[in-house]
């Protein structure tokens, strides 16, 4: 239990040094597109190209109309981008900040928040496409959309503990980032991003045992004007509690050793 307390102190300390991670994350996005003429808009454009390209192919593959399929795919891809890149980049949270970690004593969670904030900025750019897609293809929008915010927060809170755990493990075992990247790639195909959950039985293992399916559910359905299933919320809440306890205990025990592994 004392490890959990120590881990929690690290997390709170990280949140407190918000100036640092906010500034670093903002600079990460700016730096990537500095000296490019349309700058950060490239994020939006490449996501739009992907949505319309894949949409055209898969709509005819599944034999559905573009207007029935594209809002689903577009939303799915944008949300998947947030989930997958946050997980993959969290592995490098400590490794890529080694020069700072070796010089300033800051709570470790600060660096994880840098990764999460950076991915949120990118996500915000991609989000711009969705209203356009909904307008063009006439997707219904109703009050369910308000559920998007709690859904997003629930997913981020889950990604934070996963990332914290992965960041510590990756600092020690440098093979973890590669393993995680391949797992996430496989997860893309077994999660309902390209296909619709309704194409499977409601209790199909791909929907029940796959937390990514729940994450997509609580964020995507509100945007498309549907209610997410209660099961998704239960799964994510359960993971949130168990995951954070595990992650805090682990961090309390090992996060101070991270500097020796870099």
């Amino acid at each position, binding site marked *: 239990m004392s490890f959990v307390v120590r881990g929690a102190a690290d997390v709170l300390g990280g949140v407190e040094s918000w100036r640092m991670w906010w500034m670093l994350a903002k600079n990460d996005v700016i730096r990537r597109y500095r000296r490019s003429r349309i700058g950060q808009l490239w994020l939006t454009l490449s996501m739009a190209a992907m949505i319309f390209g894949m949409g055209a192919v898969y709509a005819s593959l599944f034999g559905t109309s573009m207007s029935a399929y594209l809002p689903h795919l577009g939303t799915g891809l944008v949300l998947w981008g947030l989930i997958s890149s946050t997980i993959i980049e969290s592995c490098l949270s400590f490794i890529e900040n080694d020069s700072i*970690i070796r010089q300033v004593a800051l709570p470790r969670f600060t660096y994880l928040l840098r990764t999460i904030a950076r991915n949120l900025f990118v996500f915000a750019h991609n989000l711009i496409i969705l209203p356009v897609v909904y307008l063009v293809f006439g997707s219904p929008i109703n009050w369910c959309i308000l559920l998007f915010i709690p859904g997003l927060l629930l997913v981020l809170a889950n990604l934070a503990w996963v990332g914290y755990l992965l960041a510590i493990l990756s600092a020690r075992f440098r093979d973890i980032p590669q393993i995680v990247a391949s797992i996430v790639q496989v997860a893309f195909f077994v999660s309902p991003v390209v296909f619709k959950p309704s194409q499977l039985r409601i209790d199909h293992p791909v929907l029940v045992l796959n937390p990514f399916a729940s994450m997509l559910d609580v964020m995507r359905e509100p945007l498309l004007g549907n209610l997410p299933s209660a099961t998704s919320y239960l799964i994510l809440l359960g993971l949130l509690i168990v995951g954070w306890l595990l992650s805090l205990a682990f961090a309390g025990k090992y996060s101070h050793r991270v500097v020796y592994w870099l």
Partner: protein
Amino acid sequence: MAHIVLDGASVELAIYNSRGRGLKSEILRRTVGGGLQNDRDSSIQVVKALSEVSLEARDGDRIGLIGGNGAGKTTLLRVLSRVYPPTSGIASIEGRVSSLIDLAMGMDTDATGYENIEMRSIMLGLDYKQAQAIIPDVEEFSQLGDFLSLPIRTYSSGMMLRLAFAVSTAVHPDILILDEVIGVGDAAFAERAEDRLHNMIQKASIVFLASHDNNSIRRFCNRTLWMKGGKLMMDGPPDEVLAAYAADSAV
């Protein structure tokens, strides 16, 4: 007031060499999962970088750190700046620490001089308002003028160092940690830099200075630690410790 107590502080570093990592990834490719148990293999070497160091430092201490390469000076400085938590023993450090070991930490070469001033200040623990407040000081001291509006990748290394030095020394910490007295830029600037550093040393409550230059130790310090092989050999007035160190090196 700043106060430092180290009690039997040791740092053991585990070195994971490239052969170990390469092999491990090979094993992992074949049997994913089982490979993680493999962390006690012979490819890991443990180096005792600091062994049982005990010392106390109070307000007004100007402490020099001498010893050969690999004696543990940098490791000790990192423990003192709270970067390395001791693997055994206790380190209690009260007061705001700032180390001038890597001046260029956190500089982004594509950002302008002004943006870098802001970023560096935030890393030093200031808020946005305080960061804005040190800009005139940095402008005045670095004498970079209009160059501050240009990306710092256009700077020469001398100009870059001027900026880094000016920002790093604009904030006054309680505990100041220096690895060698930094010489920056041309003769005129070097002189002003020394004044500024001198001023900073005077204002700090506790100063640690690791140096191979006996003159700067004599000039700045009122107490000296001699490190050898990770151990603290001697702790006393600069002249006595320097003499003992010189005698030991001569053998």
